C-alpha cells in the first residue's frame, strides 16, 4: 500500500517537472511597489459569483481596468488580475488575498461587497479600495465609494421615451422597477421628469416587481403595461428586467411597435429578437439604455492611484463627467432624437435644468 502511494506521489511530482518546461504563467503576485515606473501599479479586482463575463457590472468594471492597464503596459496575471467568488462567503477571503499581497488598488463592484469591503478597509488601513455603486459606508482614508447620478441619466432616457410616444401617437410610456426603495425612486424621478419635459400630457404606467431576480414577474408587468397602451417601457429591475426585455422582443418579433429601454449597461444585445437574426441584420427591441459608467469609475480610480492622488470618500459620477450616459451606438434612435437628447444634456450640465432626485408619487398622469 505504502509503495503504491509513494509511486503515485512520485508520478505527480514527475508530471510537475514536465509541466515546468512548458509555459508557466508565473505568479509572483503584485508585491512590486508601483513607484519605479510612475504609472506601473498593481490592481486586484474581486467579482461576485457572476465573474468577469456577466454582461453586467463585473464585465464593465473589468473593461475599465483593462483599458487602464493596456494604456500603461500592465500585464494580466502579474500586474492586474481578478478573483471570482464561489459564494458570498468568499468576498472577504478574496479581498483579503489581494490585501495580503499588497496590491496598490482593490476594486469591487456592487452592493454585495458592502460588508466585506467595510471589514477589509478596517483590517488593512493601508490598502486602497474602490467600491462601485455603494455610497453609504463609513468614510475611511483608504476607501473610495463611486456613486452615480441615476436620476440625470434616467431623465435622458425619459426624453427618448417621451419623443417616441409622441412619434407613434400613443402618448403612453411605462416603467418597471425592481423594488420600491429610495435608490429605485431616484431612477423613477429622473424618468418622469424627462418624459414630461418633452411630452407633458404623456401617461406613465408604473409598476414594481418587488423582486430583482424574477424575470417572470417583469414579463407579466410588461404585458400589463403594453396591453394598457404603453409603447416604451423603461426596464429598471435587475434580472427581473430581463423579463421586460423578453416581452418587448417577442412583441417586436410579432410586428408590434413597442420598445424597451435598458439599464446599467448597454442591453442592446439582450433585446435582439427572433426573425431579425435570420435575415442577417439583427434588430433589437432595446431603444436605448441608461448606462452607469462603472468602467469610467474603475479607470479613474486606477489613474488616481498611479498618479498618487487617490481620493477617499464618496465620488459622485454625473452626466457632466460622463458617469451616466446613453450608449455610444444607438441604432434605434434617429439623428433628431439624439440631437434633442444632446440639447437636454447640455441644459443639465450647464445647470439650466436641475433634475430633482425626488419623484412625484401621485399624479393623474401616473397609472
Amino acid at each position: 500500500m505504502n509503495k503504491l502511494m509513494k509511486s503515485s506521489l512520485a508520478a505527480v511530482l514527475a508530471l510537475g517537472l514536465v509541466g515546468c518546461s512548458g509555459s508557466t504563467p508565473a505568479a509572483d503576485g503584485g508585491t512590486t511597489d508601483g513607484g519605479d515606473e510612475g504609472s506601473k501599479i498593481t490592481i486586484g479586482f474581486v467579482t461576485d459569483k457572476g465573474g468577469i463575463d456577466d454582461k453586467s457590472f463585473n464585465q464593465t468594471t473589468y473593461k475599465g481596468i483593462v483599458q487602464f492597464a493596456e494604456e500603461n503596459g500592465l500585464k494580466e496575471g502579474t500586474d492586474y488580475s481578478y478573483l471570482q467568488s464561489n459564494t458570498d462567503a468568499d468576498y472577504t477571503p478574496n479581498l483579503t488575498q489581494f490585501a495580503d499581497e499588497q496590491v496598490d488598488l482593490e476594486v469591487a463592484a456592487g452592493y454585495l461587497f458592502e460588508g466585506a469591503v467595510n471589514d477589509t478597509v478596517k483590517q488593512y488601513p493601508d490598502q486602497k479600495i474602490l467600491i462601485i455603486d455603494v455610497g453609504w459606508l463609513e468614510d475611511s482614508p483608504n476607501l473610495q465609494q463611486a456613486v452615480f447620478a441615476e436620476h440625470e441619466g434616467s431623465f435622458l432616457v425619459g426624453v427618448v421615451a417621451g419623443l417616441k410616444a409622441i412619434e407613434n401617437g400613443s402618448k403612453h410610456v411605462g416603467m418597471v422597477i425592481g423594488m420600491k426603495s429610495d435608490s429605485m425612486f431616484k431612477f423613477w424621478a429622473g424618468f418622469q421628469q424627462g418624459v414630461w419635459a418633452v411630452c407633458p400630457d404623456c401617461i406613465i404606467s408604473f409598476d414594481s416587481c418587488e423582486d430583482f431576480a424574477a424575470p417572470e414577474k417583469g414579463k407579466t408587468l410588461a404585458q400589463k403595461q403594453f396591453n394598457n397602451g404603453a409603447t416604451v417601457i423603461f426596464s429598471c429591475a435587475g434580472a427581473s428586467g430581463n423579463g421586460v426585455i423578453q416581452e418587448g422582443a417577442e412583441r417586436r418579433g410579432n410586428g408590434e411597435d413597442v420598445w424597451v429601454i435598458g439599464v446599467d449597461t448597454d442591453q442592446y444585445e439582450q433585446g435582439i429578437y427572433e426573425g431579425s437574426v435570420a435575415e442577417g441584420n439583427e434588430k433589437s427591441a432595446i431603444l436605448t439604455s441608461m448606462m452607469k459608467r462603472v468602467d469610467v469609475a474603475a479607470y479613474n480610480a486606477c489613474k488616481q492611484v498611479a498618479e498618487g492622488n487617490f481620493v477617499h470618500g464618496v465620488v459622485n459620477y454625473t452626466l457632466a463627467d460622463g458617469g451616466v450616459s446613453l450608449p455610444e451606438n444607438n441604432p434605434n434612435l434617429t439623428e433628431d432624437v439624439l440631437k434633442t437628447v444632446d440639447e437636454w444634456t447640455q441644459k443639465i450640465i450647464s445647470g439650466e435644468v436641475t433634475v430633482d432626485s425626488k419623484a412625484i408619487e401621485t399624479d393623474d398622469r401616473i397609472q
Partner: protein
Amino acid sequence: MKKYKASTISLIAVLIGFLLASLLLLVTGRNPVNMFIAILRAMIGFDLTHPEKGVNILYPLNWLLNSMPVILTGLSVAFAYRTGMFNIGGEGQFIVGALACTFVAFYVPLPAGIHTVACVLAGGLAGALWAFLPGFLKAMRNINEVVICIMLNYTALYLNTFMIRNVLPININTLHETVKFPETVSLGSLNFGTASKFNWGFVFVIIALLLYWFIIEKTSFGFSLRATGFNKEGARYAGMSTTKNTVLSMMIAGAFVGVAGAIVTIGVYGYGRIFDAFDNYGFDGISVALIGACKTSGILFGGLLIGLLKSATTTLQRMGMTKSITNLIQACILILIAIQYGIVLVLNMINSKKDKKVKEDA
C-alpha cells in the same frame, strides 16, 4: 477478495484525483506544480514562491472556517444515509437554519452568549423541522425523499427572501440583507490579528462530530437506525419502528445542517441575507459523506479536504487557475471516490500479480 479499509481507499482516491487533476492542468497548458503550491498555501499559509514571507496564519484559519459548514452538512448526509435515506435537502435546511437564527437574533432578546447559543439551537431546530416533511412522507407514504427535499430547497430559498424583504429589519441601502445583528449575537473572533472570520463556531462542529459518533456507534437508538438503514424489512421484523426511525433520522440530519446555517450566518456575516442561489454547502455535504464513508473520522477528514479545496479556490485563481479549474479538481477527486469499487478491483489485481510473482520466484 481481500478487504481494504475504507480510509485506505478514500486516500488513494484522493491521490489519484489529484493526479488526474494534474494531467488535466497539463493538457490545458498549466503547471500542476502551481496547484500544489496553491494548496499548500491555502493549507498552512506558506508561499513557496515567496518563502521569505514565512507562514501566514490567515490561510489555515480560513481553511478551518471553510471546513466548518461542510463537516456539518457531511454529518447530515451521512446520518440520513446510515438510515437508508438520501438527504439532498441540505440547501433548504441550511437556509431555514440561517433564517431561524436571524429571527431569534432580532426578536428574542437575551443576554450575550446565551443569545448566540439560542440562535444556533434555533437554526438546528428549524433544519430539523424542514427535514421532518420529507422524512414523514417517506415513512408514511413511501414518497421519494429526494423529490420532496429538492422542492423544499426552493421553498426555503423563496421563504427566506420573502421574510427578509417583508418581516425582518432590512438594510435599506442594499435591500439584500438585514441590518447587523445585535451585539449579543456573536461567535467571537479567533482571527489572531488576521482578517479571517474564524470563530468559536468550531465548538459546535466538534460537539456535532462527537454527537454523531455517540449516537450512531454507542446508543441503542443508533443501533436501530443502522439496522433500518441496512435492511428496513429486517429492522421491522425485529420489532423496530422503522417509520419513527426514518422521521427522526431525517430530523437529526436536518438539525446538523440547520446549525451550519446558523454558525455561518452569525460567524461569517453577522446579518441575515437573501440567497440569490444556493450556497452549495448542502451539496458539498454529499461529497464529504462520500469521501468519509459515513464514518466520524472520515467525515472530519472529508470536510477538511473539501474545505481546503474551497479555500484554495482563491490561491489557485491567483496561480492562474480559474474557478472552473478548481471545480474540476474537486470533481476529479469525487469521481475517483465514487468509483472506489474500481480501485478495490485494481488493488486486487496488483496483489494477485504480486502473489503470482512471489510464487514464480519461489
